[in-house]
Each structure stands twice: as C-alpha cells, then as structure tokens.
C-alpha cells in the first residue's frame, strides 16, 4: 500500500488550479451582485413615464462608446497574453498593453465623471443620478481592482515558475474579462436605453 506523506501530498496537481476555481466563484458572486443592482435599476426605470428625467445634463454617448471600444481591445490583448502563456511563452508585451488600455479607459471615464459633476448632476436629485453614480462608481472600482491585480501579476510573474504564472495569469485574466464584459451591459442600460 502506498502511503502519502506531507511531502508528496503537495505535489498532487489538481486539474483546475485552486485560484482559478476561486475566481470563478468570485465572478459568480459579482454577477449576482450586479444582477441585483441592474434589476433594481430596470425596475426603477420601467415605472417612469419620462426617462431620463427632464433637466438632466446629456450623457456623453460618443466618448463613452469610444472608451468602451478601448476596454474591449484590452480584453483582446489579455486574450493574446493568455494564449501565449498557454503555449508556454513568457511574453509580457500583451500584458503591458492590457494595463495601458485599461488605464486609458479608467482615466477617460474619471474625466467624464468629473465633467458631469461640474455640470450639476448630483446625487440626492433623484433616482436617475443615484443609479448613474452607483453603477458607474462600482464598475469603476472593479476596473481599479482589476488594474491593480494586473500590475501585481506583471510584477510577480517574472519570479515564478511557468505553471504558477499560468494559473495567476488565468485567474486575473478571468476577472478582467468579467470587468470588461460588464461594461457594454451597463453602457446599453444607462446611456442608450
């Protein structure tokens, strides 16, 4: 009978890395979290005759749309980075590009937000602004967390073995995909619909 000791129990490799499973669970929770917010938003909208209410500043449709394309491009570079990783290639070129595109999205978004604030769209003036700021701020927070994670991966991967790199990269990549995929939904609901 073969016995397992504390040494070789560590070397058993699971089919899916623990951190990847963990981030999938986190994404499920996040989806339900935003699901709750978005359904509240849709319900609030559906009861109103005029939406968005009169007297609100016009939202910047076009800049935000361009910005959305930037964010989607960052998901594509992330994909390329993960593809390289799965082929055991250690390039950080695409990771750098992802961080750059994400940062551009974030800065433009923050700039737009400040501009809208200056135009006089405050919370406390009704549901529209409340939902607008809550949803945008929460998504912004997630982008920020995603960017920090990406930078963390960028710093940490160089000193790790390849399999660690792959699971780290995939973990953060999945979170980034979630953050990116969320934005078109929010864009449609807030800016267009």
């Amino acid at each position, binding site marked *: 009978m073969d016995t*397992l000791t504390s040494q070789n129990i560590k070397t058993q490799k699971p089919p899916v890395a623990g951190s990847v499973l963990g981030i999938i669970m986190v994404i499920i929770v996040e989806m339900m*979290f935003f699901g709750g917010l978005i359904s509240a938003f849709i319900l609030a909208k559906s009861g109103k005759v005029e939406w968005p209410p009169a007297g609100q500043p016009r939202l910047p449709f076009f800049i935000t749309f361009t910005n959305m394309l930037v964010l989607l491009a960052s998901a594509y570079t992330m994909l390329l980075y993960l593809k390289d990783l799965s082929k055991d290639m250690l390039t950080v070129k695409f990771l750098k590009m992802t961080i750059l595109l994400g940062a551009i999205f974030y800065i433009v978004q923050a700039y737009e937000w400040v501009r809208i604030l200056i135009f006089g769209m405050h*919370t406390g003036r009704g549901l529209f602004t409340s939902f607008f700021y809550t949803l945008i701020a929460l998504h912004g927070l997630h982008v920020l967390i995603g960017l920090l994670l990406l930078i963390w991966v960028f710093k940490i991967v160089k000193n790790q073995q390849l399999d660690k790199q792959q699971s780290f990269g995939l973990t953060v990549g999945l979170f980034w995909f979630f953050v990116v995929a969320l934005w078109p939904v929010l864009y449609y609901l807030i800016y267009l619909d």
Partner: protein
Amino acid sequence: MNTHKKQGFWHRFFFSLDHKDIGFQYMLTIFVMVAIGGFFAYVFRMHLAFPDMKVPLFGLVTNKDYNMLITNHGLIMMMWLALGMLLAVAGNFLIPIMIGTDDMAFPKLNKISYWFFLISVILMIASFFMPKGGLGGGWTLYPPLSTGDFGYNTPYKGFADRFFTANTFVLLAIVFEFTSLLMGGINFFVTTLNKRAKGMSLFKMPVVVWMINIASVLFMFSVGPLVAGTFMLLLDINVGTGFYDAYRGGDPLLWEHLFWFFGHPEVYVILLPPLGILAEIISNNSRKPLFGYKFIIKMTLLAGILSMMVWAHHQFVAGINPKAATVFSILTIIISLPFAGIILAYIATLWYGKIRFTLPMKWALGAITLFTLLGGFTGLHLGASVFDIYAHDTSFVVAHFHYTLFPTVIFGTYAAMYFWFNKFTGRHLNKTLGNIHFWLTFIFFNGFAFPLFLLGLAGQHRRIADYRQFEFLMQDPLPLYRHIATISAVILILTQFIFIFNFFWSLKKGKRVESNNPWDSNTLEWQTSSPPPHGNFETYPVVHHGPYEYNMPGKDKDFTPQNEA
C-alpha cells in the same frame, strides 16, 4: 509539517493558519455573540410576560428598548450564530479532515476571513453604543424603518451625524460578515474539489461535506443581491441617494425583494449543514448504511434550486400581486417535498438499525422530531398565502420560525459538539451533565415555543411592545400562555450555562479518550489521533470505502473505516 510543537496562546488564537484553530476562534467569537443575543431574548420575553416590570439586569423596557432588543436578537442569531456556526465553524472543523487533507486550499484566506468576521462582530457590538442607541428597525431592516431618524426629506446634516449611527454600523457589519463567509465558502469549495485524499471520489465523501458545500454555493448565488441592497441602503442613509424613498421615485418594496431573495435561500444555507451532521450521527448510531445517499444529495440540489424561487412568500402581506402570491405559494409547498424526502431517508436509516442512544444521537433525534413535526408542518400552512395573511404578523410565525431554526441550528450544533468534541480536544464531554442539558433543553424549548402557536392563533401580535390595549389578549388563558413561554425561555437560557460549564471544564479536566475512534465510525477524521496534529494526519489516508459501510457482511467488526484496505 508534523513537527507540531506546542503553540503559545497568542499564536494559536490570533495568527494560526490551521483550520482547526480557526474553527475554534470562530466558535469562541460566536459564543460571545450568542450570549448577547440570548440576553436580549431574556429581557424582551420578560417584558412581554410581565409588562411594566423592572427586568432584573436591565431595568424597565421602553418601547424603543423593545424594538432595539428584538431587532438585534434576530440579527445576531440569524447572521452570526446560525450562519457563522454552521458554515464557518462546521466547515472549518470538518471539511479538510473529513476529506483527508492537511488544511484548506487557501489557509491565509481562511485567516483573513476570520479577521473580517471579527471586524463584523466588533461593528455589530459597537452599534449598540451609538449616540442614538441601537438599531430598532426590525431584523429584516425594512426601509424606511431601518433608515432611522434620517427619514427621507430631513436636511443633510453632515456626514458624521449619519455615519455614527446604529443603522450604518449594522449594515457595515453585515457586509463584512458576508465577505468573510464568502471567503470561507470559496475556500470550502476549492478545498473539496482540489484537495481530496487519494481514492476519495465525490460520492465517497460524507454527506456533511456535500451539504456544507451546497450551502456555500447556495450562499454565493443568493448573497449578491442582498449585498447590493445593503450597499444601496448605506448610500441612502449616508449620501441621500433615495433608492428606497418613494418620495423621490424609489421603492421601499425593492429592499424586501433584495432581502428575501437572499433571506429564503439563507434558511436553507442554515438548514443543510445540520442535516449533513444528522446524517453522520444517525448512520453511525444506527449502525446501518445511510439510506439513499445519492437520493439525499439529489434532493438537496433540487431544494437548493427551488429555494431561489420562493422568496416572495415572506411578502404576502406586503402588497404583492395576488396572482404572484399564488405562484409563490405553490412553489413554497413544492419545496417541502425534497426535504420530506431527506427526512424520510433518515427515518429509513433508523429502521431496523441497532440504535445506540448516545448523547449526539439524542440531539439528532430531537432535532428531526421537532423540526419535522412542528417546524416543517407549520411551514406548509404558512406557505399557503390564504393562511399566511391571517397568521403573518402574529407570534404563530415566531413559533414556526423557532421550531425550524432552533432544532436545526441549536440541536444540530449540540449534536455535532457532543459527537466531535472528543476528536478535536482529545477529551470527552461529561455525559451526566450532557444528559441533563439535553432533557432540560428539549422540554423547555417546547415549553417556550409551543404556547406561541396558541397565542398567535389567538391574535398575539409579534411586533408591538405593549399589547395591553387589546382586551382580548388579556383574557384567560392567554396571560398563562405568555407566562409559560417566558418562564420556559428563561430556564432554557439558564440551561445553556450547563453546557458552557461542561465545555470549558471538559476542555481542561474531561476524561481522556481511550481510543481514536470511540464511536466506531468510518469517516477519515476518526482514523487519526485525537486531537489531530497540525496537518491532521501522520500519513495521508487512501480511501477504499464509502463513508457509511456499517455492518457489512463478511467483516469481523461492524464498521469499515474508509481507509481500510
């Protein structure tokens, strides 16, 4: 890993990464919370039976005090005792060792989850001492009650004024606690999938591991909307967004939906781990294989899915569409079927078993009896909207609720404690004290909760502090029922001190275990030393058998350890 040197107190209780130590930290923290929640229950029960009385250790209970006591009793018992004890404590103690591994998949995350839990406890306790007193909006936190003095339309008075209120602190505590439980749940799930011992296939895992994992996943699927709702409520209070403010176009009913979308799956999150604990204890003490292992798992999964579709049965009187109410009634009654199936499987396990009436078995049988006969059955009635509308705001609901939660949470926890205490400490709990504890708890729990059914049917309102304006509530025999309920509740609370004494006394002075496997059990935790070393096993087990192979033909003993070749 097996060089387990003795750890100092500080190290063990503040910095240890071992799952058993973290489980112990959770347990002690929860003991503190239960003491507070129990004390609150004592005060308002005394007030209900004897209005205008100066309650010993508290004083006169004003209406405001009453609201605060009942709110915080509910919050503490639901969020910190039930969820904490059955997810965090049970999961931490049992999962790694039962699946035959050394620790959680992410020990550091586990430690962080405990720290978050501790922060939530501190925030919760701090909320009692806010300048305007504790929160009195009901444990369901319905706005506008839960927005407190910042009723909508009050002018914005500055951030500190709004932040340092019980409302903000309680909501923050809830967010912290759920974050903690989420980290724990992710840990349980990943540990179970990735770190099982060699040969431990999914259907060789003990049912309790299944149940805690299903409960964790259910928790993850349901908690998001509540956290979103809590976030919106925090913004309403602190920033003045008005999501729940009808005057500004918001909808107070929205909170009820978000809350109960979590709230109903939550009761199954609470129910499943004790059901798993009962499966272990009943099979072990009937010396028979568990009846319908896969059937139980399937029924649990079915119940988990259904539980996401029944939440509005909490809102039958909140003004929801009567047609929707009918749908929710039907779904609610359907959800009792899987649970009836599970309970029947347990009873079938008892059938023709060689039953040993050990202490954990007594708690387990007590739990099944009370939960099924009175908790589950009255739930069927309340699930039908026609009856619910009559009984909803009466103490009938309180009795139903306590008959479902008390047998599962409290009896289930005690069953687990009397079963596994000797494994994790190496000493037995005292049996005589245990028996006294069981019988007194069983009798006085019924003495406390059963009169509430009768009171509720007679029209005793469950939310008001002073009912004396209703003359029909002052006629015989209703005062007698209230006195029985209150005196029983007080004795019930006092009885728990027997356990607390037993627990801490046995920890130091209890009888040492003679063998590692005093219950002749199959599962892996009994195949290592008591208490298990840091890392759980000297050599890691290889699993060859299912968890419930008792009295198998052709064996010289009536149990077959899972790792026996």
